């Protein structure tokens, strides 16, 4: 019985890996035969990626990039939750701030890079600030909306239990809006990554984004692809980590509703 069941689950998963491997093989064979300038073989690209991860570039470019991304993301999310949740709970304020917030959210964060460079200078702090800027709006707005829509019965239960406003915010509104907040956190993750990469392509002299652009400008094509592969690897790991975290934090919600309400 269990063999049949696991067979039913293994086969499709295996197919996925087989297809992926086949596509890589296709890439490799085509690149080898076609000899196009802009399409290196998978093998060369992977080798370049490996160099990036094991050579000096690891400490001079890759890790600092990841560090800036993580810091900017963390700051942006913290600000988003800290500001958005009370704003949503304190209903009267919401109509005042909404247009400004919606505007800031709609503004592509990368567009402020040139001006941020001008005002804050070309340094790591500026990049972290811009990453945080990009990350905070989706989190803020989601936290706001989540807090707004907390079931009033839950809040009344809190009031009847003698909780003050701060306690209600902390112990009821925040946990209740967590699913919505996580949806915003996931969106912010993608944005933070984009801003991190772009901040290193514009007016930068180090970092993974800079490495990729620099390689392209010097027509070091396998290195360009290698950098993209490393970036993909980072993006994938971060995404997997996030999903794990989300599953633990929202275990109660997932079990109850049978699925995420977010993305």
């Amino acid at each position: 019985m269990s063999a049949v069941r696991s067979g039913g689950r293994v086969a499709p998963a295996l197919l996925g890996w087989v297809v992926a491997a086949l596509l890589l093989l296709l890439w490799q064979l085509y690149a080898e035969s076609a000899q196009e300038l802009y399409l290196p073989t998978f093998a060369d690209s992977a080798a370049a990626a490996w160099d990036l991860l094991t050579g000096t570039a690891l400490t001079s470019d890759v890790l600092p990039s990841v560090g800036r991304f993580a810091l900017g993301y963390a700051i942006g999310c913290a600000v988003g939750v800290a500001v958005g949740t009370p704003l949503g709970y304190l209903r009267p304020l919401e109509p005042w701030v909404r247009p400004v917030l919606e505007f800031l959210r709609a503004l592509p964060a990368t567009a402020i890079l040139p001006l941020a460079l001008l005002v804050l200078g070309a340094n790591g702090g500026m990049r972290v600030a811009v990453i945080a800027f990009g990350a905070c709006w989706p989190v803020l707005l989601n936290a706001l909306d989540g807090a707004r829509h907390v079931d009033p019965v839950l809040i009344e239960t809190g009031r009847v239990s003698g909780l003050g406003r701060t306690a209600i915010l902390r112990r009821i509104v925040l946990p209740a809006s967590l699913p919505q907040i996580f949806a915003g956190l996931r969106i912010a993750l993608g944005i933070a990554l984009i801003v991190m990469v772009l901040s290193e392509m514009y007016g930068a002299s180090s970092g993974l984004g800079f490495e990729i652009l620099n390689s392209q400008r010097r027509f070091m094509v396998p290195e360009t692809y290698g950098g993209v592969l490393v970036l993909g690897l980072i993006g994938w790991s971060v995404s997997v980590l996030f999903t794990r975290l989300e599953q633990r934090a929202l275990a109660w919600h997932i079990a109850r509703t049978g699925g995420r309400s977010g993305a």
Partner: protein
Amino acid sequence: MPDEIIRVDGLRKAFAVRDGETLAIDDLTLGLRQGEFLSVVGPSGCGKTTLLRCIAGLLERDGGDVRYRGERVRGVLPGLQLVFQEFNRSLFPWLTVERNVRFPLHGLSRGEAAERARHALALVHLEAFAGHYPWQLSGGMQQRVALARAIAARAELVLMDEPFASVDAQTRIALERVLLDVWRELGLSILFVTHDIEEAILLSDRVLVLSQRPSRVIAELDVDLPRPRDQLKTKELPRFQDLREEIFALLGLDRDELLAAGSPAAT
């Protein structure tokens, strides 16, 4: 005669609607004595929930007084617990049953809070489910958790808003028995709102009958039936039948033109 724990005098509550105001409660007066089980019945939509919320301080009243142990009260009434009709929405989904029951006990040490929670859960026969989550429980069990929470809070006063309206008949019978046991054992004062007339008579010491909106108390009946009450035997007593008939008549339920204009039962 025990003291009154709650006294409502001339309560008035209006809601703003599109073109003006609608009066939900007009000049309502009642008193709940210490240790008493008082039921409030009335036609649908007459404002029973509004009444409870005004007493609890969750709604601002437009007129009248609410006194708790003789003192006028503004805002949320201290030392009370409210058991909602929508019990499933009043339990925090991210907390286990035990933590839900412990929720009001924020002033106590962990050990003491855990002990009280355990005791309360035992009273409602749910100790085995302390580690479960609310959504894993049936409706009747969730309502028992809400009751346990009120018990753990050592609330002297429990306001209950049609708590058994959304459970099936058999579960309701069990819950009524649990409620009576807990009430007797802990000496609670209970203000119990229901639309179920038999339930009101079965459980209470007194029954207040409200009018159609805008509500006021139109009748007060002493339920002089022997305790402990029993689901079968008490309901067979002639006095029970008399009380039932009387309340039926007051609410206009005994006539054919049930939903006719002007009848109290019409909404």
